[in-house]
């Protein structure tokens, strides 16, 4: 599997580290224990298209948001994760 880093171009999987589901959002401080438990521990086991966080640690050290099909490994989109680089993306 290869990932096209928006900053570096196409790179081999070995340069990246997988974090997991990019969907969970940190609940507000007053959201209650259940919401925090859900955010920290509970994950969907998605068979299909999933939004994931990957870290390009072996390259430009940017966090990326990757849309990947967990059944086929097909990657349909890669974008910088929130806060990763404000420079022009692409090329």
């Amino acid at each position, binding site marked *: 599997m290869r990932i096209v880093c928006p900053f570096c*171009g196409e790179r081999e999987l070995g340069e990246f580290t997988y974090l997991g589901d990019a969907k969970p959002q940190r609940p507000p401080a007053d959201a209650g224990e259940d919401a925090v438990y859900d955010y920290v521990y509970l994950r969907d086991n998605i068979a299909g298209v999933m939004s994931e966080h990957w870290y390009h*640690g072996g390259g430009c050290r940017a966090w990326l948001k990757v849309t990947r099909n967990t059944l086929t490994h097909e990657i349909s989109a890669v974008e910088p994760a929130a806060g*990763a680089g404000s420079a022009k993306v692409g090329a």
Partner: protein
Amino acid sequence: MADFSWYIRSPLERALVAGRYGAPGEAGVSLTEIRNFDLVQVMARRGKAAETVNAAKARFGVGAPETPEAVDTTDATLIWSGPDQFLVLSRGGGQRMETLARVFAGLASLSDQSHARALISVSGDKARTMLAKVSSIDLHPEMFPVGTAAATSIDHTSVTLWRGKNRQDGQAVFNLLVFATFAESLWHTMLDSAAEYGVTIAHSEELA
């Protein structure tokens, strides 16, 4: 309190043995360690990327690289090292921290890497063939022309790789910056990979 005697020495001081290595005959690969350089990491602060590029332009006459490339200026090389960040490589003391801190004051965070990295220059007939064994990046001249840079990994070790100006004999030159503590390991990996082509080993104080 213990008395420390600090002195500067290369992280490759033990590993690098100047001379010939590997297959006899004409050496296909030259491995040269460049010593005594100044290296400063510049990372733009949030929202200050464009201003940082402009500050570099005011200082060096060219903007800082915003894509993976290495730009030569009259007295420094600016090497892309990630989004909104680049390295300033120079020698002679003209572009050290104290100078650059004023150039990028309020715009970027700086970190002196002069003694934190080793700089290795790879050239020769078989340089690209040798690097192909250890790097997953396509270094063909069409894909990786002079001035191209990459933040990548070689032998599981993060490196900043860029293609410098060709040697006087027209041979391509690949420069590698590697963390000092990984330099010896990477050096041995490259030496092993290059042995079958014959290697000329040297160190120099001239930036390629």
